[in-house]
């Protein structure tokens, strides 16, 4: 078995992904079938956010990936120019 931080990080990722999956499934799939007067609706945001939040998160992810690629390319260009 992997040791130390590997295990902690790994199982942490598994837990996070399960929590997100459970909450999102309840939000998108189960809530429409529950009576709108039920108290559980208090724990979930309005339904529009079920699309907006993943969309915003996806765009942020693309932004970070783009920034990282730009940074790496600029750094390698600077190194190549110095070597000339």
């Amino acid at each position, binding site marked *: 078995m992997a040791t130390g931080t590997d295990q902690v990080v790994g199982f942490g*990722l598994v837990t996070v992904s399960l929590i997100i999956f459970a909450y999102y499934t309840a939000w998108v799939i189960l809530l429409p079938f529950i009576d709108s007067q039920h108290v559980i609706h208090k724990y979930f945001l309005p339904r529009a956010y079920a699309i907006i939040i993943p969309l915003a998160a996806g765009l942020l992810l693309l932004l970070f990936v783009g920034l990282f690629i730009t940074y790496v390319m600029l750094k390698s260009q600077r190194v190549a120019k110095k070597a000339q």
Partner: protein
Amino acid sequence: MTKLAQWLWALALLGSAWAALTMGALGLELPSSCQEVLWPLPAYLLVSAGCYALGTVGYRLATFHDCEDAARELQDQIVEARADLARRGLRF
């Protein structure tokens, strides 16, 4: 047919089925709760695919076997290779 073509075909099929159902183009009168489940379905599938990927990466990270002996052997081999190459004139 290539794998890409297969995936695009499947996506186009499912996408058009979803679009037809959401916009009522088939003239079916689905109950409103089903409609409410249907329209976020692509986002839901994307999020669950992302969750599955994240969970799989985390699980494999946690259960990957460490090989202490192989790591030590590799480090020794690296030192040996560096010494050998330095002797042959390669500068690091």
